[in-house]
Every structure is written in C-alpha cells, then in structure tokens.
C-alpha cells in the first residue's frame, strides 16, 4: 500500500530528487506498457473515426480520388427509402431482441438457480449454443425451421398448426433471427445465474419463514437484488442488436439458395428487405456498390447511436463499481 500512496502523493509534496526520478521511471514504464495499445488505438480507431466523418462529406468509389460534396450524402440519406427501411428493421431488432433475450436469459437462469441435481449438465446444455459461430447457428436454425420437412415443421404439423415460411416470409424472417439470438443467450444467462446465486441466502430464508412462496421470493428479493445485472443485460443486448449483421446476411443468402457470399447484391436483406439491418445496408452500400462516401455517412450515424448507448453503459458501470467497492476508476 505504501508504495502506491507514495506514488500518488509525489505530486503534492516537494519532489525530492529520488522521487522525481522514480516518477520519471514510472512514466516511462506506463508509456512502454501502453505503447502498442496507444498506437493500435490511433491507427484502428482514432484515425478511421475521423476519416469516416471526413469521407461522409465526399463521393468516393475507392478508385477515383474522393470528391467533396458537402452534406450531399446526408440529404440523400434523408430521402432514401432503403435507409429508413434499414433503420426500421434495426429498431425492431433492438426492441424485440433486447426484451426477448433479457427475459429468456433471466427465466432460464432463475430455473437453473433452483435446480438441486443435474445443474452442471443443464447449465452446459443451455450455455453451449452461445459458443457456436453465428454462421453455424444461423444454418442450424435455417435447417430446423425449413418449411418443407424441417423438424419444427413436423412438430407443428402434428398439432395441426400451419408452419410459417420463416426465412422466406418477410413477416417471419425477423422472428426467426430473434429465435437464433435467444438460442445463443448463454453468456447473459451465466452472468444472471452468477448474480442470482450471489443473493444472500439468509434473505430467502427469512422470507420463507415469513411464508413468502417461491414466486414472491423471486419477485421481491431476487429481481431487485440483481437489477444492476439486468441493466447490463439490456444494454448488452441493445449493442448486440444494433450490430446485427451475420445472422441477417446468412439467413437471407441461405433462403435465396444463393451460393456466393460475394455474389449479387440482391441477396442482402432477403426476403423483401425484411432482414436489411442498418449494418447490412452499410456493408451493401460501401462494399457491393462501392459508394464509400454514403457508407461513411451511415457509419457516422451508427457511431453517434452506439456512442450514446455506450455512455449509458459506462455511467451504469461507474455507479455500480462505486457502490460495490468505492474503488479506483470505473
């Protein structure tokens, strides 16, 4: 502890010769340790962020030099129907995926927390899908949900229910992708499970003595206690939904039966642009039509949105860490 205090106090006390040397050495160490990270951040985040904003005021196709067009990309964006479709789609995913994932993960975690035997096995079964590559998870669901002869189709047939066309039907493609996102909620589930198991057992015992049933105990003790984790789950799911890309592209291209990921542009967002999420549209604009300036304008918009979400998360983290340990930093 002493060494740390000394290091902090150095600034205030009149620096003796030895101390200022120690301070210089400390500064050098920090610089040496942080150097790759600082260079990397500048090269791969700092520069491209600024460049994105600059590119967004230009017309650029990668071949000819960028041509300044002022707010042209932004005014075009305002009147672009596809842009609004993609915003709508992403908003749909932000709302539905966030709710579905958080509620589902919470439900699964609550059940697992109450199990007395077979915990390890069931926890593993629920967690493993979240490790699957998103491409593989999407193909798995594409196979299971396929309309003619897929397993779910057969189950629904057995109950006399008409199976939807899922990834070929504009109104069912998004729920299909949501199902994938719920299947891979394992990491969130583990976080919630850890938080639920962290709730002091005495509180439950006291409540039980008072005659509160399991549901009331869950509602009045578990839920309020784990609310910070719940908030984390919500913000985490929002970020995930904002970035939704792989599942949308793979489901769309599998449904068209197209083979080539580089192939014709029409596959993105299939069916009928219902899976054209904002990042997907950005990718299509920049790397299929090579309209880099317009893509950069969309990237700027995406940046502003995700920045706002990040600030909410950082604020939350700061608060919870101050409450927990009162410790250093966020």
């Amino acid at each position, binding site marked *: 502890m002493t060494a740390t205090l000394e290091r902090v106090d150095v600034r205030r006390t009149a620096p003796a010769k030895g101390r200022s040397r120690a301070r210089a050495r400390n500064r050098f160490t920090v610089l040496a340790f942080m150097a790759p990270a600082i260079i990397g951040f500048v090269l791969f985040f700092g520069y491209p962020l600024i460049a994105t904003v600059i*590119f967004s005021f230009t017309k650029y196709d990668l071949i000819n030099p960028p041509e300044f067009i002022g707010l042209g990309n932004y005014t075009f964006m305002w009147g672009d129907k596809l842009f609004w479709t993609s915003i709508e789609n992403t908003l749909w995913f932000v709302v539905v995926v966030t709710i579905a994932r958080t509620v589902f993960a919470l439900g699964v975690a609550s*059940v697992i927390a109450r199990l007395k035997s077979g915990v390890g096995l069931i926890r*593993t079964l629920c967690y493993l*899908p979240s490790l*699957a590559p998103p491409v593989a998870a999407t193909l798995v669901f594409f196979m299971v949900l396929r309309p003619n002869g897929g397993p779910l189709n*057969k189950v629904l047939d057995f109950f006399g229910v008409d199976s939807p066309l899922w990834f070929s039907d504009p109104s069912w493609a998004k729920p299909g992708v949501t199902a994938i996102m719920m299947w891979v909620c394992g990491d969130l589930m583990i*976080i919630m499970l850890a938080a639920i198991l962290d709730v002091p057992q005495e509180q439950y015992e006291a409540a039980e003595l*008072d005659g509160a049933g399991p549901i009331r105990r869950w509602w009045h003790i578990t839920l309020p206690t784990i609310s910070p984790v719940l908030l*984390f789950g919500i913000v985490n799911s929002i970020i995930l939904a904002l970035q939704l890309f792989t599942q949308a592209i793979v489901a769309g291209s599998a449904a068209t039966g197209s083979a080539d990921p580089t192939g014709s542009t029409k596959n993105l967002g299939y069916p009928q642009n219902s899976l054209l999420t904002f990042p997907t549209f950005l990718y299509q604009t920049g790397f299929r039509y090579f309209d880099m300036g317009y893509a950069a304008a969309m990237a700027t918009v995406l940046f502003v949105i995700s920045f706002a979400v*990040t600030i909410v998360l950082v604020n939350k983290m700061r608060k919870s860490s101050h409450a927990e340990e009162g410790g250093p930093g966020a």
Partner: protein
Amino acid sequence: MTTTLPNPVVVAREESHAKPRSPRQILDWVAIHSIGLAMGLIFAAPVVFVLLTAVMSDDQAFTADLWPREWHWENFIEVFEKAPLVRYLFNSMLYSLLATLGMLLSSIPAAYALAKLKWRGQNVVFLLVIGAMMLPPQVVAVPLYDTWSSLGLTGTLWPLIVPYFLFDAFSIFLLRQFMLTIPQSYVDAARVDGCTEFQALIRIIVPMARPGIAATALFCFLFTWNDYFGPLLYTSEVKDQWTLSLALASFKGMHFVQWNSAMAVTLLAMLPAVVLFVFAQRSFVKGITFTGVKG
C-alpha cells in the same frame, strides 16, 4: 440492495412449520426439475436434429425424415473431399492462433498499466478502451478498408491479424478486470524487493492472473474463429483465403446440394468451441461473469 419483505406481523399467521411440507416439497422438486430438463432439451434439440441429418445418406437427406435409416458417419470424412475444407480450417487456425498470440503480447502489459499502475489520464484511456469495445466494426470499416487496400493487403487475412498485435479493446478490458482482483500488496511487495515493473508483471501478476489470461485467450480465439464480418470484408473475393465461418455461409448450394454435408460441416465448425469448453469450463464461466458483474 433494497428488499421488500412482507410485514412480519402480517405473515406470522401462516405457520410454515406446522404444515406437512414434504409432499409439497417433492412436488416442487419434480416440477422445477422437469422444467429444467425440458429447457436443456430445447437448447440441445437443434443440434441433435443437425447431427441426425448429418449422418443420413445422400438420398435420405433430400427427404423430410428426422431419423436416419442408416448411420453414415463417413459423411464427416467425405466433406473433406467435396470441398477444400483443409484450406479453410488452416486459414481459420492461422487467423485465430496468430490473433490470440498477438493479443496476449499487446494486451497483458496494457491491462497491467491500467490495473496496477497509477498515472494521469488512466481513467480517460480506460473509457476509450470501453468505447472501442462497444463500437460496431462497421463504423470504421470504410477508411480501414481504404488503407489496407492501398497497402495491397486486401484479399489476405493480415488486416484482421495485425491489429491484435497492437490493440484489442475487449481483451484489455477483461484482463484489467481480472488484474484488479489481485491485491495491490503483492505488486508493492515485489517493488520493495527491487523488482522493476516488468519483473513484477512477469513474475507476480502473470502467474497469479493465469485463469484470467486463459479465459481472455479462449474468448479471443473463439471470437476470431466465429468472426464473419472481418473475413467477409477482406477476403471474400479470394477463395483460398476464406476462413471456415466465411466458407460455411455459402456451403449449402455451392459445394453440396444435400443437407447432410452442409450440416456435417456446420458441426465441424462448432467443434472447437465444444472441445475448448469441455477442457476449460471454469475459465469460461469465470470470464463471462467478469465481463458482466464486476464493472
């Protein structure tokens, strides 16, 4: 945290002890375990169906059957003949292993500086790390692609690997969280004993943070193995630079008409995650809880 317990006076009339509770407890036990088992089955079912389809014969894979008439385990071998899977596997391995190695070299010192050294601007730098972690990769894709293409490196995996040797926000974040849990007194003791910061890091922190380092490496490996956007952006035009994830997206239809082969490859792509999980279950669970709870 606030808990709203019912008023003790009111609920005192419910005598929880007097009731014969054991039959109800047994019922509770059965109910909760049935739900748990059903949940496990629902999570497992899609993969089971995929496996059943993967081992069907070519003819049967066209049909709507759920159960294979014969078990063709050789399908898992035959897919290697139908597509250049070895090449894709090699590319995925190259990407994941080099990225993980680079991440360890660059992120461990950075995390140490953020967790165990005191310096001005520390909090700002940490906030920048979080910001970078949350940023959708599409935001910076345009200028980065532009730069890599002027360097002539698009069409290779290097634009994806090189950044890990300098900066990986998520790994720095996770390693910092782990290192914060190591008591500062260990580092101070090392300093008193005359260790330089580098020696303190190598001799004290790295051995103590081994579970955290293992978890971070696992996540990094899996993230790159699962990555689709990166390879799609840089190597989609050059087929022999495809990773398994990228190739998988176009398998059904391109290399195979039948579901059985496509599903066999899907299972192969999921295999590394399962194997890693079996051997390092604890690291996974520890790592995940650290990303969420200990802000």
